[in-house]
């Protein structure tokens, strides 16, 4: 039985695809057979972040419309055993996805996989609702910024009402807050919402905190998910996040501003 996790946010560009790729990689590195599915039909990105864009032959829409089998469309990751990618279509539009089609795909994957990650498109419309519909758990990606927090709350409302679990009156979708692009120096200055505030406002469990990091751009440039970059803060923070998803109790890191010493403040320039 696979666990289905949707990575969602409402607001665009907050780090869903980066997070889906990193978490899927982390889960697979821990020995779980994992597939990450791009639901962003028409605007696929996950293939780039995973570094498999040149191996895309068929996509999710082809599978749903019966033009290709699941095995033809799934791409095996070059670096990690047990990790697969199911890309989105670049040419079709969002209406090409149907709820029945997705149910069939997930049903087929359910037998073979431990984790199915769904990388949601931005927004709260049909595409985002399809990506979350069959989920058992949700990672709600949130930036420390007012519009992102507000949109995350909208998404929480949808998770509680527009999912299969909600409609059937089953146990609710498990909601996890993932704060990304966190900048402790700006929090320390009082110009960025701190993690306690965000957690208090949204009132859901915090699964991880990813700092704003140069490693993320480096990783996406190369097509290597940042979870592989274990020398980096963001890479380590994603690995911690995966451990928590697996039920481990891991202390939070990278949330405190390391005040610079007097010397580096005198010679090292400003605080940012």
């Amino acid at each position, binding site marked *: 039985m696979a666990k289905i996790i949707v990575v969602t946010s409402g607001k665009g560009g907050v780090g869903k695809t980066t997070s889906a790729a990193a978490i899927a990689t982390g889960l697979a590195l821990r020995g779980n057979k994992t597939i990450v599915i791009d639901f962003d039909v028409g605007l696929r990105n996950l293939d780039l972040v995973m570094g498999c864009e040149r191996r895309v032959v068929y996509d999710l829409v082809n599978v749903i419309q019966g033009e290709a089998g699941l095995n033809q469309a799934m791409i095996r990751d070059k670096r990690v055993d047990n990790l697969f990618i199911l890309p989105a279509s670049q040419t079709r539009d969002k209406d090409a996805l149907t709820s029945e089609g997705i149910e069939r795909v997930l049903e087929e994957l359910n037998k073979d996989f431990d984790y199915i990650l769904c990388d949601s498109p931005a927004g709260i419309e049909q595409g985002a609702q399809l990506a979350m519909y069959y989920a058992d758990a949700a990672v709600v990606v949130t930036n420390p910024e*007012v519009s992102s927090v507000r949109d995350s*709350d909208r998404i929480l409302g949808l998770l509680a009402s527009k999912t299969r679990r909600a409609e059937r009156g089953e146990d609710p979708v498990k909601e996890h807050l993932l704060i990304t692009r966190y900048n402790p120096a700006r929090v320390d200055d009082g110009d960025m919402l701190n993690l306690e505030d965000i957690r208090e406002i949204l009132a859901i469990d915090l699964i991880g905190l990813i700092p704003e990091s140069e490693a993320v751009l480096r990783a996406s440039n190369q097509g290597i998910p940042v979870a592989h970059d274990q020398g980096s803060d963001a890479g380590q923070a994603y690995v911690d996040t995966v451990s928590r998803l697996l039920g481990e109790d891991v202390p939070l890191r990278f949330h405190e501003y390391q005040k610079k010493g007097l010397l580096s403040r005198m010679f090292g320039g400003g605080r940012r």
Partner: protein
Amino acid sequence: MKLLDFLKGERKKSASVAKERLQIIVAHQRSQRDQPDYMPMLERELLEVIRRYVQVDQDAININLDRDEDCSVLELNVTLPRT
């Protein structure tokens, strides 16, 4: 006074303004979450009717549906301008 606050470093930090705004927005969103789909429409139409008689602001009207086991109460609050 402002300058003094500023010099003493007591300027209100932007993050705490953000927090206060979000608390209000989120409380509002959550109160609307379990409401039936027709509520925003009902609210707009009620506002129109009221405006035929009294000129009130968009946010002067507040409706709320409380559902109990066996009955629901529609609560309507309208703040009228002082005459």
